[in-house]
């Protein structure tokens, strides 16, 4: 995530949302219309927080009076229930949920149709079995999961918490906690529910919480109790007041409420509430009143899974499913129509035809029609019987197989060593189980920069103090205990020397000021931890901004060790000497000012203002008259830094005289106690004081590229994936990162669009469009900044931008606001059918990740929100290469083949059944036993396709990685298309005809009986269908052998078992028929004849029209690897820049 320069949780202004909060709020809005322009959004959020909560939208909580609270509104108790079912509701509810799936409804309708006596094709057992089997398996799975949920619910509900009752704190189980009760939480305890803070052990009311369970962020967050409640809470008995707060919602960063105590009205914001699931840290105890409990807590409301996406292949497949339905209808119509014709032509003889016998004479002498309802009805019944018999034409089992295959694929993706991150000890995660194959078709990649391309481990690199560049350690000691910063920073010796030097040179003074400001002007919380050595303690700096952490660590390295921070003061160990500074005021970071400031009362009683911020916002508030040359020198240095890809910040300071301070203090007090427009007032106060600053220096922080990023980007580009990098960094930084990550190359022409108005934006875009349109050969990089994007997005300019971007080899968007990221993804997604993938690691990438077809989260430094919203999560950016080029390629090819094969294998069987109808007087007799019909798609042929779908690889991973162009197979949708579908269907007709007609002619006019011929057809179909698969298997390992040959053997065993049941008409048929040579001659002829055309055509195509995959397979098989490298490599070098697509 690209953080806009550091932002801070405010101490004094408890109202406004930090910029991060705002981002997430937007992310949460998700599908809602995306707004652009940060200013407008900001003010809207502010106005919301000041809005009165309307009574009907509010809930009233009487503090420490749960009875009264729950009197009028019966609020949810604190017991949670994540389990879906109870013993009694399991059956109906589970069935209800399962039948949400169309596939099951189809099964059910067929099964129900079959129960009508006129339509009964299969026996009861045979018709219900497949559905019952699937339902049972799913139900067992659900029941097991639910059992585990029940168990964890029980554990959770029985945990204990201290609840204030009868004038003392008593232990109470979580499930009995009620809204309105006051609860005491001690350090390291997990919070049982959402509570508004009343008091804490800290006199200023600060409390630190860790929200790992909630959003995965491990750093500490500060929350505050209101000053007004702090004293009152000591005497809880008499505490009288109520809270009016909004209805429960799932926004974990938003909360608005009013509290009324003693007739005074206080406003509460998100910083006054602590949420269920968080852990209390660094605070002895905290008191809070329960506002949301149980299922209404924000943690529980957020407990839903990732939104489900449907894979492109599956959507594509629907067209062919419709075609298959049409085939099915055509087959049924044919059967019904021919049956009708036969009935009409023989209508006079039906009573006496030996094999029809319409009349039942046992009822009355003149006879009564038996099972005959007139030929209109007969057509109708025949049609629906045909639907039942041919039901597997719609390969419903395919959906279940696909799910199993995806689970298998996911298993191998998660276990892949190439995607195992050693540094974080995390393996790949598949969070969405239904879009594996989409990974093989990606054409646009949207990547965040910080934390995604880079490590997000900020490292202080250079400083520029007083216009002088210092680009190049020792622990402090107090009371015999050595305090060490947890992280070491590379130091510049000359600069270190300068700070050590006690000589009061101007240079040294500036350096000291510089580091003092770095140590002081932030919101970092130092946490001192013990180590195994009692004389050494570690200082860990916790904060929400990695940039600030880096700066504080840097200051520590230069001898300015921040040791303690409370809301009132900070303690800094300056080269071994403890110094205490009073924090008189703090103006938090906001995205308008793009800076923060702190006012310190120094030990020498002087009052100093330190300001830190982005260069663009800082130079405007500098005292240019006095320090013009320093500013110029600094600007030059900053340019150099950002060209090196460093993130820069500028630090300024000013000494405040008494009158200035008094003035500021008065207005600050007024603003921070204002009831309305507090944030705006505070911003104004800050703006007034942050002027005429003296420039102290500038910092440059390096955000290192992750390992393998340049290679990964190059691979992806060669694979024909368009890489868009979206970053919050400024243009120079972004471009330099672009070069170092090989997104940009020297021979690319850069088109830069940074305009400040709609018109200029339009002009430059159209110019750019004209220039790229006229020139085909040159490769172009488009660089566009966030301001221009404001004008472009939601506007007709989107089309122009899209055209330009399509022709560019690389696109770099800098200064992008989080919500614009989703806008950019949407821009591409709405204009092309190509697949998009978004990858990011931070909360600001959530919207983009959810917008893209495939969202990938990096589990990195910035918490787990991106991961929670993503479909796939992994540790490093470079894993994208094996993920897409290897697994994506495989999954796509496997799934594409599997769909076609499943269509084929079911259709072959249906057609065999259909051909037979033409020889049974157009009645739906099946020579194949009904059990074989049912088992065919479940047992005889399903296992190999699942195994092959999980395990087969058309190419090895080495060659896929070394030749990224092979990824084009998926992008061009070569693995599955309507053309392939038609080829498969023609092949299907041929194969079914071969299977059916060879025995038909061979046995015509012989003594063959139905069961024997049916067994021959069954075995022939199973052998042909499995050999067909065997012909297309690329890698024969033992599992593939076992699956394919095992299936054939299993089918034979089943046929034998069915034929040893004496009460079935086919008793012993298989033994009788297998004794004859005819049987085996037919089988051999069928297998060869059925597969001959496919074999010949497959060879011809592969030999004379070789696909890339085929060539690569030949290379893989026939040549040694090194040779192929040279061979294919030289020719690839000629096209270093991939062809534009």
């Amino acid at each position: 995530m690209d953080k806009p320069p550091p932002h801070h949780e405010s101490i004094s202004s408890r109202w406004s949302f930090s910029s991060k909060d705002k981002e997430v709020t937007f992310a949460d809005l998700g599908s809602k219309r995306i707004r652009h322009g940060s200013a407008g959004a900001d003010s809207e959020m502010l106005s919301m927080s000041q809005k009165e909560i309307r009574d009907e939208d509010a809930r009233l909580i009487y503090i420490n009076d749960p009875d009264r609270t729950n009197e009028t509104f019966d609020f949810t108790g604190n017991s949670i229930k994540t389990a879906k079912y109870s013993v009694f509701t399991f059956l109906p509810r589970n069935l209800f949920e399962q039948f949400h799936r169309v596939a099951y409804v189809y099964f059910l309708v067929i099964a129900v149709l079959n129960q009508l006596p006129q339509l009964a094709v299969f026996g009861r057992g045979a018709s219900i079995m497949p559905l019952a089997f699937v339902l049972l398996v799913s139900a067992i799975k659900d029941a097991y999961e639910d059992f585990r949920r029940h168990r964890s619910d029980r554990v959770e509900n029985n945990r204990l918490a201290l609840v204030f009752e009868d004038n003392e704190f008593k232990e109470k189980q979580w499930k009995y906690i009620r809204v309105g009760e006051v609860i005491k939480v001690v350090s390291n305890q997990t919070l049982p529910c959402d509570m508004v803070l009343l008091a804490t052990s800290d006199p200023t009311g600060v409390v630190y919480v860790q929200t790992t369970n909630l959003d995965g962020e491990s750093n500490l967050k500060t929350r505050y109790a209101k000053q007004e409640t702090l004293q009152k809470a000591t005497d809880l008995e008499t505490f009288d007041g109520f809270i009016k707060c909004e209805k429960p919602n799932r926004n974990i960063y938003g909360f608005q409420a009013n509290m009324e105590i003693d007739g005074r009205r206080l406003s509460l914001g998100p910083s006054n509430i602590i949420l269920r699931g968080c852990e209390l840290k660094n605070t002895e105890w905290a008191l809070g009143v329960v506002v949301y409990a149980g299922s209404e807590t924000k943690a529980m409301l957020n407990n839903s899974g990732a939104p489900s996406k449907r894979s492109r292949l599956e959507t594509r497949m629907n067209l062919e499913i419709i075609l298959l339905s049409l085939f099915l209808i055509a087959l049924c119509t044919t059967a019904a129509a021919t049956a009708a014709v036969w009935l009409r032509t023989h209508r006079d003889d039906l009573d006496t035809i030996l094999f029809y016998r319409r009349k039942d004479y046992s009822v009355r002498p003149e006879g009564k029609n038996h099972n005959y309802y007139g030929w209109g009805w007969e057509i109708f019944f025949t049609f629906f019987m045909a639907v039942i018999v041919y039901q597997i034409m719609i390969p419903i089992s395919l959906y279940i197989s696909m799910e199993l295959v995806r689970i298998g694929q996911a298993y191998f993706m998660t276990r892949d060593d190439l995607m195992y991150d050693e540094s974080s000890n995390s393996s790949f995660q598949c969070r969405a189980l239904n879009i594996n194959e989409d990974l093989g078709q990606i054409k646009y990649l949207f990547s965040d920069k910080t934390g995604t391309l880079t490590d997000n481990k900020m490292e202080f690199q250079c400083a520029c103090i007083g216009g002088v560049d210092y680009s190049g350690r020792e622990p402090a000691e107090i009371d015999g205990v050595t305090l060490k910063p947890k992280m070491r920073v590379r130091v510049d010796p000359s600069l270190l020397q300068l700070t050590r030097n006690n000589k009061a040179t101007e240079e040294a003074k500036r350096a000291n000021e510089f580091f003092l400001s770095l140590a002081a002007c932030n919101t970092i919380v130092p946490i001192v931890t013990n180590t195994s050595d009692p004389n050494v303690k570690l200082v860990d700096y916790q904060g929400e901004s990695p940039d600030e952490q880096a700066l504080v660590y840097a200051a520590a390295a230069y001898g300015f060790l921040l040791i303690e921070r409370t809301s009132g003061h900070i303690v800094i160990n300056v080269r071994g000497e403890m110094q205490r500074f009073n924090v008189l005021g703090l103006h938090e970071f906001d995205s308008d000012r793009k800076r923060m400031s702190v006012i310190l009362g120094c030990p020498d009683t002087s009052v100093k203002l330190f300001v830190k911020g982005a260069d663009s916002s800082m130079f405007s508030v500098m005292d240019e008259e006095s320090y013009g040359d320093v500013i110029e020198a600094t600007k030059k240095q900053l340019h150099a830094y950002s060209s090196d890809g460093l993130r820069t910040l500028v630090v300024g300071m000013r000494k405040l005289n008494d009158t200035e301070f008094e003035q500021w203090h008065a207005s600050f007090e007024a603003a921070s106690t204002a009831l309305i427009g507090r944030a705006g007032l505070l911003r104004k106060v800050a703006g007034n004081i942050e002027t005429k600053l003296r420039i102290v220096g500038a910092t440059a922080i390096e955000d290192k590229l992750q390992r393998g990023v340049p290679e990964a980007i190059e691979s992806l580009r060669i694979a024909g994936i368009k890489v868009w990098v979206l970053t919050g960094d400024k243009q120079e930084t972004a471009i330099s990162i672009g070069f170092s990550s090989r997104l940009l190359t020297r021979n690319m022409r850069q088109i830069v669009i940074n305009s400040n108005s709609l018109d200029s934006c339009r002009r430059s875009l159209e110019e750019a469009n004209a220039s790229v349109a006229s020139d085909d050969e040159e490769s172009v990089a488009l660089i566009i900044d966030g301001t221009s994007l404001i004008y472009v997005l939601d506007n007709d300019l989107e089309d122009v931008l899209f055209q330009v971007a399509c022709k560019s080899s690389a696109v770099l968007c800098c200064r992008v606001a989080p919500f614009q990221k989703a806008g950019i993804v949407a821009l591409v997604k709405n204009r092309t059918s190509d697949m998009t993938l978004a990858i990011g690691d931070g909360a600001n990438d959530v919207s983009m990740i959810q917008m893209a077809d495939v969202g990938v989260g990096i589990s990195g430094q910035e918490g787990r929100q991106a991961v929670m919203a993503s479909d796939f999560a992994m540790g490093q950016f470079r894993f994208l290469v094996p993920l897409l080029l290897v697994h994506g390629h495989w999954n796509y090819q496997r799934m594409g083949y599997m769909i076609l094969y499943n269509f084929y294998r079911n259709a072959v069987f249906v057609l065999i059944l259909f051909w037979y109808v033409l020889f049974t007087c157009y009645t739906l007799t099946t020579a194949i036993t009904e059990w074989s019909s049912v088992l065919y798609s479940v047992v005889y042929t399903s296992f190999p396709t699942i195994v092959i779908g999980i395990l087969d690889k058309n190419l090895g991973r080495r060659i896929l990685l070394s030749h990224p162009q092979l990824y084009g197979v998926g992008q061009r949708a070569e693995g599955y298309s309507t053309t392939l579908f038609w080829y498969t269907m023609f092949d299907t007709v041929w194969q079914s005809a071969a299977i059916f007609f060879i025995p038909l002619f061979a046995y015509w006019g012989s003594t063959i009986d139905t069961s024997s011929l049916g067994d021959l057809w069954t075995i022939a179909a199973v052998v042909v269908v499995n050999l067909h698969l065997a012909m297309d298997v690329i890698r024969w390992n033992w599992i593939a052998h076992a699956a394919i040959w095992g299936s054939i053997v299993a089918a034979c065993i089943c046929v034998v078992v069915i034929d040893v049941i004496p009460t079935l008409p086919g008793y012993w048929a298989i033994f009788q028929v297998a004794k004859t040579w005819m049987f085996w001659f037919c089988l051999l002829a069928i297998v060869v004849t059925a597969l001959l055309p496919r074999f010949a055509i497959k060879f011809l195509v592969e030999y004379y029209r070789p696909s890339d995959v085929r060539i690569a397979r030949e290379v893989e098989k026939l040549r040694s690897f090194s040779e192929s490298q040279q061979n294919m490599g030289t020719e690839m070098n000629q096209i270093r820049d991939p062809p534009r697509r």
Partner: protein
Amino acid sequence: MSSNMASSSAGSGDSSAARKNSKRPKCIDYSSALLSLTLLDSKFTQQELPACKPILTPGWVISTFLIVSVIFIPLGVISLFASQDVVEIVDRYDNDCIPAPARTNKVAFIQGAAPKSCNRTLTVTKRMKQPIYVYYQLENFYQNHRRYVKSRSDSQLRSPKFENQISACKPEDDAGGKPIVPCGLIAWSLFNDTYTLSRNNTPLAVNKKGIAWKSDKEHKFGNKVFPKNFQKGNLTGGATLNPDIPLSEQEDLIVWMRTAALPTFRKLYGKIETDLENGDTIQVTLQNNYNTYSFSGKKKLVLSTTSWLGGKNDFLGIAYLTVGGICFFLALAFTIMYLVKPRRLGDPSYLSWNRNPGGGR
């Protein structure tokens, strides 16, 4: 770039196994058996199980076709020979056995009481070795009609206990409230033409034992089940059964109940256990009782020897020869194509990105 990329990817590929081991050092410390197990496990999870990856090279394909043709052509030839060896005498009598005046309304004749006896003379044109099978062949008779095949009760046939399981047998389920054994349309329509054969005026024995499957006689048709109420309904379909003989001995019924798969079928009537010489004339006295006229079904009497491959049917031999021939032709064609226009396998110039560099697709 490519060399650089390749080496890095190759390196990571190689190191993966090593890395796996370092990740699980405890396994290495154990015996070598465990080590190999771990390696196998990692090979599985990394999808690198040892595998054979055949590809269709011209050599393989041409030899496959050659092998198929080499196998199929001889098989076709011996199949044809087997079929040619079979001597078959087929005599269609359904039309001729109706007296000429009655031919305008055959159904009335067959349902009437007039004598149905009919004489046929067959001439043996080629020596027939015993056993000679006597079949009746029906055409256009749908023994596989859905209504028909379902109309039986297999449990009733097997055991007297299930005599009352007749629900599937409608409309031939009971007669006067008592269950029919064997019930159902199939049994009801039992073929009832009879043949008496004589050669050169001496009776020719037709052995009617052993014409049904042994498995059916022993397990499917019970030896305690006797026909009851059979053909007692208002409409007689076919033959009657001797109520004193258990079903397991009623071989004509057992043969008939093995319903034919196809509308043209033969059923075994009996066996002649003497050789027939070339030029022998065989007189057949038959009772033309069975009504196939209502659906214009044909009736034929067949005397046939068998070969190891079955009856007289050239189809399979021709099919084998055709497929073998096609394969031979394909082998030849592919060889020529391979010689005229070969493609070097693994030639990178065929790769799409090399065929039209820069243009893309």
